[in-house]
């Protein structure tokens, strides 16, 4: 257990450093934007009849730091705000704290990503085993090629093709927003049904674009394990096929769990394209809107949150790995 505790401590320390780095990056970007939006706003407010103090305060609310004062002062201001989870106030949605906007957006991202990823993981892993076992046959070849291609096609291309096919040429599925506005939000059949219907294409896109990676990863993992001595040893000891198969599967899937946790984190960032194309008001769309509307507080907030998700996913992946792999559990680093 102490091993795990030590690892956790190391991860948290590294995660903190990462957050610090990313926050610093977004601070300097906001601070260096051409045309200095802060100064512009500050001066505008003063022109509008505000006292310099009140104007500075208003700008601090918007950007998280005072427009006047030294760079260092601004920086500590900004970081201090982050410490209290104060991400500033959205400009494009006047008066709404960024944290609230992102909280609302997160649910539109997390659920489709989760469903799509788990779905593709399940299918991809099972087909990956077949691709490995039948790797000399036509079926194995076809599975591997389908995996490579789907893995290679960018998510947005896939999304657009799906929209063109299932929403334009054969209009059977909606591709515009998360739900039909006709329905009263709440727990009623119409609303839930509309939600589900609108989720089909985004979820399928997530699943298809991730599927290829799983097939390929599982195939190569199974091929590696099949070459391991202990599998031959189990066969030579006359172990039942089902038991040998379990040995293969468990050893092969182990490294994939790490990737699963990681990809869940990364997907939150990768959701950008899908949310843009399907007009899903999730974190990715918030980030794009922040960039397009020059709503810097929203932008850097979304960026920080997405990075935070990746870091958390990293930690979860590693801890998860160390609980299921006895080699790590007992303190011996896996090679």
């Amino acid at each position, binding site marked *: 257990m102490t091993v795990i505790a030590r690892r956790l401590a190391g991860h948290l320390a590294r995660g903190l450093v990462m957050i610090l780095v990313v926050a610093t990056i977004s601070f300097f970007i906001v601070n260096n934007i051409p045309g200095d939006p802060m100064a512009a706003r500050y001066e505008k407010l003063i022109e509008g009849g505000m006292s310099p103090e009140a104007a500075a305060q208003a700008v601090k609310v918007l950007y998280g730091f005072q427009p006047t004062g030294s760079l260092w002062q601004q920086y500590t201001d900004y970081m201090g705000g982050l410490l209290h989870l104060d991400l500033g106030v959205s400009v494009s949605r006047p008066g709404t704290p960024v944290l609230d906007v992102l909280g609302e957006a997160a649910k539109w991202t997390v659920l489709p990503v989760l469903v799509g990823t788990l779905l593709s993981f399940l299918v991809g892993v099972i087909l990956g085993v077949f691709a490995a076992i039948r790797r000399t046959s036509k079926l194995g070849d076809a599975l591997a090629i389908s995996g490579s291609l789907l893995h290679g096609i960018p998510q947005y291309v896939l999304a657009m093709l799906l929209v063109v096919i299932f929403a334009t040429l054969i209009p059977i599925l909606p591709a515009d927003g998360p739900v039909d506005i006709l329905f009263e939000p709440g727990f009623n059949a119409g609303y839930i049904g509309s939600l589900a219907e609108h989720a089909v294409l985004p979820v399928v896109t997530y699943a298809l674009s991730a599927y290829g990676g799983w097939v390929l990863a599982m195939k190569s993992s199974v091929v590696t394990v099949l070459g391991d001595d202990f599998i031959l040893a189990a066969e030579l000891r006359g172990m039942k096929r089902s038991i040998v198969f379990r040995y293969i599967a468990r050893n092969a899937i182990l490294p994939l769990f790490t990737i699963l946790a990681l990809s869940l984190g990364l997907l939150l960032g990768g959701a950008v394209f899908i949310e843009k194309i399907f007009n899903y008001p999730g974190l990715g769309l918030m980030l794009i809107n922040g960039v*397009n509307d020059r709503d810097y507080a929203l932008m850097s907030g979304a960026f920080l949150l997405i990075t935070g998700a*990746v870091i958390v996913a990293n930690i979860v992946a590693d801890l998860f790995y160390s609980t299921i792999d006895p080699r790590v559990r007992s303190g011996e680093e896996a090679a």
Partner: protein
Amino acid sequence: MSATVIPETSGGISTASAMRRNFWRGVWRVMRRKPSRLAGAVILAGFVVMAVFGPMFYPDNLPGDANAITRPPSWEHWFGTDPQGRDVLALVITGSRYVLLSAAVTALITVVFGTGLGLFSGFKRGRWDTVLMRVTDMKLTIPGLPLLLVLATVWKFGNPLQMGLVLGLLGWGGVARAVRAQTLSLRERGFIEAARGLGLSTGHIIGKELLPSMAPYIAMNMLIAVTGAVYAQVGLFFLGVLPYESNNWGVMLNLAVFQAGAMITPYALGYLLAPLLAILLLTLGIVLVVDAMDEIFNPRLREE
């Protein structure tokens, strides 16, 4: 007990040059067995030719035909026309230069940075290795696309070289890791010590022995990094966070979807599909080449 052991087959320094000689034979064998892989190389070559020579056949500002706005594919315009009446195929061809030029810059930077740092890390080991790999890890952790989106507020990326530079600086992590792993693995096999024992200089070991045997891995990881970079830059323009100063596939996609409404009206489908097809074809080429490389260098996946 006696230490009377029949010598097991001994590896030696000659393996590197033997590997190199066998390499081209392996390439040829793999290519011959599955002609589709040769097709991959041909597709990639075709794109390079298109990017280098294609734009020479068109004027800087493509002429628009006001009478033929957003037309579906026809004999005259194979993929139809855009909302300004310009030929979509011409747009794809002229746009390929931006995409491939920035990809080339990315490739150069990934290879130089990745190989340099990977070699250094794997060669020196110890503290430098730890620090460099921590940095690489961190870089791999920061989600690339969101970072690019944020950067898009500061940089305009009107120049493909600039785009390639940024993407390259964001993308060398994979190559660095691969090169480091290879260096360490060769070191573990006593390769470097053996070369040292023969009195070879570090420069010679790296230049003549290590790099040639690693070149395929570098190439493979570079291709993967470049694919990612192409997607990222087309995607950035597609998302519309960058100004439409330059002509490239991403801008086309953005205009097709969000201005011509290609996903709603079948009229503009050609406009949407042409850049999509170009990306798919490029993907296919890269996938086939990487697949061939994978089989050449990963004997475990080699089919009997």
